[in-house]
């Protein structure tokens, strides 16, 4: 009997869907579509705001595995040996090594010699990189907004982060001092690292929206090491990118397992992520879930009302069906099928819109924030889970009103009492 029950439910549902008003059906599907988009896109954009920042930090600064100095060390000891070891690991795609020191940029060092006027200085981080290796790992070359990217053999030329300039970061505070707008490509600036001073030419300006990069001055590694006397090649940072579908934790553990944990802090990008980013991600995810939950409740109520009105206006026919021996569950099942139909249509259209339209659109046109680019986070697993949640909510919201009407006395339903 159970098979017949479902078959008749299916038969009735199919006929009801085909026979119902096209405008009403489209409206309900549209509501389900909006609900699904609300479920996925709102939280996706909220999470994506943070994820965009995280992705940028990972792409431009941390990589998949990030190696930095230990708490009380100034450098990473045995850097060349460690780099050689890392390059032998099969999961490793590329590695870039960075040397850093604190320093000061002075843009008006010539004027002060003449007139004693106020310096145009900024205290910042001075870094040495192998430009080609850095570009290989971070695509930094594409981030040039003015001038040119450094060449490996450049000398007395530097690349500077955009956040060091007023025209890019129009704020002035104790933390964020900036250079005046008269510093342009080709300008000469004085770099001081402790007692060491070097006049250099600004070759390029880069803007990545990652503070650690955009507040730096970049020399070539060769000149930087010579300048600061880092002849043992001891670095301060190493960024490792690994091959697709490999596990950064395994790479991290391998490096630690080889004994290099004694000389440097070895972290995955997730470990190295600042705590505030983790907190923000959790908060935004929670906000997204709250907004989505409200959307879900609204959708469930909508389906409830639609099915209830449908069932109550068809109460007489429900009574007749019961009267001629159709089981209650067949009739209830027909309403469940209708609810599922509305939900599935809405979800399918939603999935197409998300994956064919919204995701590519946000990937091409990210929401630009000063601190990073917001993307739409909509993974297949997440969208599937949300689809299932919507489907279940819809089934329950469709079943309850149908049950309420079907449960009524058969004769009263037939006679409209």
């Amino acid at each position, binding site marked *: *009997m159970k*098979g*017949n*029950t479902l*078959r*008749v439910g299916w*038969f*009735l549902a199919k*006929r*009801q869907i*085909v*026979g*119902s008003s096209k405008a009403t059906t489209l409206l309900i599907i549209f509501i389900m579509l909006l609900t699904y988009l609300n479920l996925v896109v709102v939280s996706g954009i909220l999470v994506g705001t943070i994820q965009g920042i995280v992705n940028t930090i990972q792409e431009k600064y941390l990589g998949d595995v990030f190696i930095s100095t230990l708490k009380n060390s100034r450098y990473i000891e045995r850097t060349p040996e460690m780099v050689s070891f890392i390059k032998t690991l099969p999961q490793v795609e590329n590695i870039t090594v960075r040397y850093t020191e604190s320093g000061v940029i002075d843009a008006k060092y010539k004027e002060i010699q003449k007139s004693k006027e106020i310096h145009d200085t900024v205290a910042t981080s001075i870094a040495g990189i192998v430009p080609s290796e850095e570009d290989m790992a971070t695509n930094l070359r594409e981030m040039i907004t003015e001038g040119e990217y450094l060449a490996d053999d450049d000398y007395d030329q530097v690349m500077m982060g955009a956040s060091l300039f007023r025209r890019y970061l129009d704020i002035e505070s104790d933390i964020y001092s900036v250079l005046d707008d008269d510093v342009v490509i080709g300008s000469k600036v004085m770099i001081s690292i402790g007692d060491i001073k070097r006049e250099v030419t600004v070759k390029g300006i880069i803007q990545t929206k990652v503070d650690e990069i955009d507040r730096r001055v970049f020399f070539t590694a060769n000149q930087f090491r010579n300048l600061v006397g880092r002849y043992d090649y001891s670095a301060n940072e190493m960024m490792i990118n690994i091959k697709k579908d490999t596990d950064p934790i395994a790479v991290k553990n391998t490096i630690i397992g080889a004994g290099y944990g004694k000389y440097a802090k070895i972290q995955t990008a997730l470990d190295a992520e600042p705590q505030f980013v983790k907190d923000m991600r959790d908060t935004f995810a929670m906000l997204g879930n709250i907004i989505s939950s409200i959307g879900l409740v609204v959708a469930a109520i909508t389906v409830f009302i639609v099915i209830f009105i449908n069932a109550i206006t068809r109460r*007489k*026919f429900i009574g*007749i*069906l*019961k*009267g*001629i*021996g*159709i*089981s*209650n569950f*067949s009739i209830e099942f027909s309403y469940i099928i209708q609810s599922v139909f509305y939900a599935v249509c809405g979800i399918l259209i939603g999935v197409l819109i998300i994956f064919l339209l919204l995701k590519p659109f946000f990937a091409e046109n990210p929401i630009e924030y000063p601190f990073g680019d917001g993307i739409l986070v909509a993974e297949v697993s997440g969208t599937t889970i949300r689809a299932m949640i919507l489907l279940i909510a819809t089934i329950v919201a469709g079943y309850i009103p149908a049950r309420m009407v079907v449960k009524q*006395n*058969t*004769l009263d339903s*037939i006679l409209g009492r």
Partner: protein
Amino acid sequence: MITIKNLYKTYRTNEIETPVLRGIDLIVKEGEFLGIMGKSGAGKSTLMYQVGLLDHPTSGEIVLNGINTEKMTKEERTEMRLSTLGYVFQDYALIPELTASENVMVPLLMQGLDLKEAKKISDGVLSSMGLAERVENKPSQLSGGEQQRVSIARAMAHNPKILFADEPTANLDSISGVAVMELFKEIHRKGQTIVMVTHEEEYAKYCERIVYLEDGKIVREIKSK
């Protein structure tokens, strides 16, 4: 086929009791065509609803096809309505979004027939009732007489033991009414047990036996010539 003993039905609304059936005793034999007549409010339809398992009597006993219905569960009553009983309602009671054929198919599908078999039987029954050209029409595209014939087809398609008809000609013009009654006559000739409620004397003559109800009691019984 049907045995009714001391049947009472009282409706209660806000503490007000309205007795509608007051001790009905009736036996309907297999293959009989019984008419139930009486004035409005006499309890004709109420009696049919109790016997047709669409409602529960206040007291009394109803035995259908040898089965005492008093202690049947809801599911058993539904099952019996599907397998043993057929209904023709005054206002046809067809499902508007289903075609004539589909309306007839629904109880057949519930009985376990597959779509193809059910469609074959449905179209066959409708054809035998002169509706071969109308099987794919929806109720709104049919005349009142045609709709009632579809309703009869739905009631008869699964070969019920007992066919109940509640004022089947009430909404029809005289020509359609006669056509419907001729259909009942034909069905009865093949041995079908029919219980029909009507208040129209001209159609009551099609019945073998007529019981008259007044204030919830059988006051008269006549056999048709």
